[in-house]
């Protein structure tokens, strides 16, 4: 029997490869200089969804929440064969913590309507919280299966999954629909298909068209630009290249549960860690020397 899947994907700064170029003079990280990438584990979630479609039939819808630039990861999804791509972008969603984010994503998934499986990467490399998947599952009122390593089988309303439990594995059966979070050990994501790249490289969301019109027609009036965006959007729509762009109104989200007002946790303080290796310090092999070393490591939070 065919299964319809939704895959949640996120564009993230490449925190794993912080190089000297990304350092400011004071030794802290310049986030803006980091390349934006497809969150690694989300690629494995996408691959799992595509494999399920290959085996059982059905559809795969990619869903991303982020600024207009996040449309880049949705194009990557189209290059790998998803049937539908939706960008949820809205300034009112900014500053959402995991609770507000999962509320918004769950509303978007409800709006998509029919689904048997929701796949997410276990966690995103910018926050490393691993919370949005389980929280989405709760908001949708469906079971969650975290840390998938292998999608073993599906039969009617039941799927069988092998999950990693840290010091071993277990095989569980879940009723469907269910939300599954995927580890990077699950599979080898397929590369983009050359044919799909040729076909979808011009795919855009409207917000991108607006930014392109702004750059191409700096002298034009707002009305002229709007007309140009509408014209381009129509051309793309007719060719199946206009990706869907949703805002919070489109998904009927209660605004008090989105953004800052929907977020119980607030960032109170952020300290950058100086990444450059300081020069070598010779520590005398004495009680005093060792004590001051430990004091230094506690002060700079190397030791908890």
């Amino acid at each position: 029997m065919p299964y319809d899947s939704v895959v949640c994907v996120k564009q993230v700064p490449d925190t794993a490869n912080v190089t000297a170029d990304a350092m400011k003079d004071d030794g802290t990280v310049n986030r803006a200089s980091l390349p934006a990438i497809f969150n690694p584990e989300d690629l494995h979630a996408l691959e799992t969804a595509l494999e399920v479609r290959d085996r059982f039939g059905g559809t795969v819808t990619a869903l991303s929440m982020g600024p207009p630039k996040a449309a880049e990861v949705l194009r990557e999804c189209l290059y790998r064969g998803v049937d539908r791509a939706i960008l949820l972008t809205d300034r009112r969603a900014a500053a959402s913590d995991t609770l507000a984010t999962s509320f918004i994503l769950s509303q978007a998934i409800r709006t998509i309507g029919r689904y048997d499986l929701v796949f997410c990467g276990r966690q995103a490399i910018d926050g490393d919280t691993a919370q949005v998947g389980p929280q989405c599952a709760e908001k949708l009122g469906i079971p969650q299966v975290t840390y998938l390593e292998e999608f073993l089988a599906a039969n009617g309303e039941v799927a069988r999954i092998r999950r990693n439990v840290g010091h071993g594995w277990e095989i569980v059966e879940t009723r469907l629909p269910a939300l599954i979070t995927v580890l990077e050990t699950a599979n080898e994501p397929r590369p983009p298909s050359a044919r799909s790249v040729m076909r979808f490289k011009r795919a855009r969301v409207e917000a991108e068209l607006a930014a392109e019109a702004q750059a191409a027609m700096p002298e034009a009036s707002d009305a002229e630009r709007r007309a140009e965006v509408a014209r381009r959007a129509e051309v793309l729509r007719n060719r199946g290249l206009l990706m869907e762009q949703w805002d919070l109104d489109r998904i009927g989200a209660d605004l008090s549960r989105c953004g800052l007002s929907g977020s119980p946790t607030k960032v109170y303080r952020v300290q950058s860690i100086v990444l450059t290796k300081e020069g070598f310090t010779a520590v005398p092999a004495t009680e005093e020397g060792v004590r001051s070393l430990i004091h230094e490591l506690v002060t700079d939070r190397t030791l908890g």
Partner: protein
Amino acid sequence: MIMIEPNRQGEVWVYAEQEDGSLHDVALELCGKARQLADQLGVQAAAVLPGSNVAGLAQKLIAHGADRVYLVDDPQLSHYQTGSYARVMCALVRKHRPQIVMYGATPLGRDLAPRIASEIRAGMTADCTDLQIQDVTDPRTKTLHEKLLLQIRPAFGGNIIATIVNYDWWPQMATVREGVMPLLDPDSSRVGEVIREAAEIDQASLALKLIERHVESRKVNLKGARVIVAGGAGVGSRENFRQIYELAGVVGGAVGASRAAVDCGYIGKDHQVGQTGTTVRPALYIACGISGAIQHRAGMEESAKIIAINEDSQAPIFSIANYGIVGDLKKVIPMLIKAIRARQ
């Protein structure tokens, strides 16, 4: 379900993670932390213990600092699954309104805690490495909030340290990394109260069926370790490696080894760091009696900070170390252990 108001008399809670009848170390570490936070707040510390046939574990939680244990003993809880355990926790949080709930940032804790947070619409901070109580003024409203829980965690790939608070939207909940809170010696003379709570577990919360399970006794987790204490040939014997374990225990770190130490039979291959072993990038790597061959360095030079201890001042390990101690391990390691214990 509307959000829960702050309850300043609320207890400090620990989720007591157990598996097959034995408590996870992190639950005991958190009992000690809960004791400390509860004393600062002038409230009680409690542990919540769901499971089947787990009553015998309650005293251990008390010995590690809990004043009270909420015991939920039910055959339906014999195997962990998210739905049923979340149902139990949510019911107890609503009933007793704790001000703080801590969970170990284990695979299980990171599966369970966000589900609970979502259901009761509370905040949740993942993977904390420190928790403190402090008065905080909200910069937006200028309101002073007394005795908030500062939830301190690395973020952005470990490149920043963020401090998270919940101003007026409680309970304050966090998962805490294993090994960052010291495991205190148990005090078996401590007296606490065990309160049995009934579980209301409906079929809807038991959506998963366990088919097969294969777990090994806890394997060496070098990849996930924030601190690694590694020994090389210079440690000298299997017996001497105990010192390495002891230091790792005190800093809440994992034990690593160079290939030379493994080849000498001082320690198992699971612990090997380097080109043919595991590649690691912890916050702190303490290399004890490791000369620092290129194959070893390749597996650990990305560590944020490196301390090298070696008798040979010319050892190549010093070329990549941030701190170098030239000296005898048998003398230096006890000094380190003493200094670390002293600051706790």
